[in-house]
């Protein structure tokens, strides 16, 4: 109940922020731009539209996490609005879960809006049969952003908004290359190999959520992949929020 109330308020905060409206408009403009660029793609307009459209959704979602999500908790501490919440019968873990859930909900709405716009654009262009692959790709992008949001909440509960954004971006970038990092760790000697392997295991396995190439070929993924990705996201978010709670529990608000 309490996390839901905080989530609702966080959702309101994110959706009333002009940043979100600006990013949605940018996303729509980007989809429009794919039609101009597509002319140069020599018959690959469909593939380019889907690929750029899905990449745009993921990128704009990431911007939203970095610009709004990473300051979710830190801004509340800085502005002291947190006093009005935590002096009520609210456990700190409920607060963090609420913040994460609210921000994630806002991201899912952005993904759904832009995903629908992409599907509508393809339909208008007379391209059909993309609905399922697009829905799967948008779903996985939503999961990816939910995982990144949990990292943002973790960083935000420990640091300033700017540093939180940098840490989150770092996690995101390394997470995107986690397969390469793991492969490199296997070849690296001794301590370096172990360290890289530990980092690769710690950062989120973000390639798991990337099926943009498949979707651009109108291919769907397997239910097992969707299930594993969902379970992985739930587990990763749970771990990140548990760590955030452990750090936040002993924190003083001076």
């Amino acid at each position, binding site marked *: 109940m309490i996390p839901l109330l905080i989530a609702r*308020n966080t959702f309101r905060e994110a959706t009333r922020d002009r940043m979100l409206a600006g990013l949605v408009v940018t996303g729509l403009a980007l989809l429009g731009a794919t039609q101009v660029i597509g002319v140069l793609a020599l018959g690959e307009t469909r593939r380019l539209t889907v690929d750029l459209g899905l990449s745009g959704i993921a990128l704009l979602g990431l911007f939203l996490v970095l610009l709004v999500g990473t300051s979710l908790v830190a801004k509340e501490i800085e502005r002291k609005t947190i*006093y009005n919440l935590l002096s009520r*019968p*609210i456990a700190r873990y409920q607060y963090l879960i609420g913040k994460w859930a609210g921000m994630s909900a806002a991201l899912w709405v952005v993904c759904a809006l832009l995903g629908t716009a992409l599907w509508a654009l393809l339909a208008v262009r007379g391209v059909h049969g993309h609905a399922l692959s697009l829905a799967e790709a948008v779903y996985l992008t939503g999961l990816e952003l939910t995982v990144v949001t949990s990292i943002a909440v973790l960083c935000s509960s420990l640091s300033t908004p700017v540093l939180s954004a940098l840490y989150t971006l770092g996690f995101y970038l390394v997470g995107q290359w986690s397969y390469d990092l793991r492969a490199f760790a296997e070849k690296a000697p001794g301590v370096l190999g172990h360290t890289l392997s530990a980092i690769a295991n710690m950062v989120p396995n973000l390639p798991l959520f990337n099926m943009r190439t498949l979707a651009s070929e109108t291919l769907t993924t397997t239910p097992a992949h969707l299930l594993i990705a969902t379970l992985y996201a739930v587990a990763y978010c749970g771990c990140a929020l548990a760590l955030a709670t452990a750090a936040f529990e002993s924190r003083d608000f001076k």
Partner: protein
Amino acid sequence: MTSNSGLAATHTPSGGDGGPVTGEVRGPVARAMSARSVVRAEGLSKEYRSPWTLKVVQGLEDMTFDITAGEVVGLLGPNGAGKTTTLKLLTGLLKPTRGSAFMFDEPITNVHSRKRLGFLPEQPYFYDYLNGREYLELAGRLSGLDSREATRRADEWLGRVGLGDRPRLVLRKYSKGMLQRLGLAAALVHGPELLILDEPMSGLDPFGRRDVRELILEQRSLGTTILFSSHILPDVEMLCDRVLIVLHGRLARSATLHDLMAHGANGVEIRCVGAPVLEIPPAWRARLERHEHADGTAFQLSDATLLDEVVQWLMQHGVRLRAVTPQRASLEELFLAAAGHDAPHAQAVS
């Protein structure tokens, strides 16, 4: 409405209609009957450690006090004495280094201890993207009200604090006084049995101060236990049953206002007119001072036991008495005495 900026002076007590968090009898009767402890601190201490130098700064040391149901207690002390630290420890915003505290017999580490608490932080900050009604609804719901009740009380309290005519005005457009009143409404919206207010009159104009004072007095009449910190000593004097004086992070004194005043300086002012030029007898000179005013003469008698003799002496000399007024030491004088006339502290008290 009590003023232009004002809070409603007369209204139905919200606590009286049975908030969701209390089923107890409220009001003066309950207050008189009950002497149960509402807040209890036992050796509460707080140390701050610099993360860079690891230097430890003592914020609060061994605070022990007890506040019983229905009491209005003022927390006094100069800047940096530990007042806000005490209040933040009680409200769960800070974690104690040592000691323990209880609210309604539940340890403050348990979030449920805050269920019957209303807290107004110093210079409250709000979500500027919400409007007043949304904020109070949120505050009510987070303190346990259901959706319908939260909406009803949000509307009620917006009206009571004089903000009811613009319920959809976003908070970024509120003035400081409006925010302070909204903060009070948020602290009271769920009908708490304990109110903790950190400098509730800070930064308010005289109208705002009067309104807040009236609201505190009203809550007091409902039997709400109130703990508040303030620098404005006349307000404390007007509102409190008891004061806790905090100095250097320690509880320097805990006394009822009555006891404090009774042990303070006692004197009498005698106002009179038509007094001829009287020479004060040498035996009284140390205890009796004469001041001439445009409307007559005032004699300040520092020892009330001499009153009969002085009055008789004045009457014998044809003086017409206008007023004989007992003089009490002000809380400020008593506070300064408790603070040991420490210069930096004295400056901090306005």
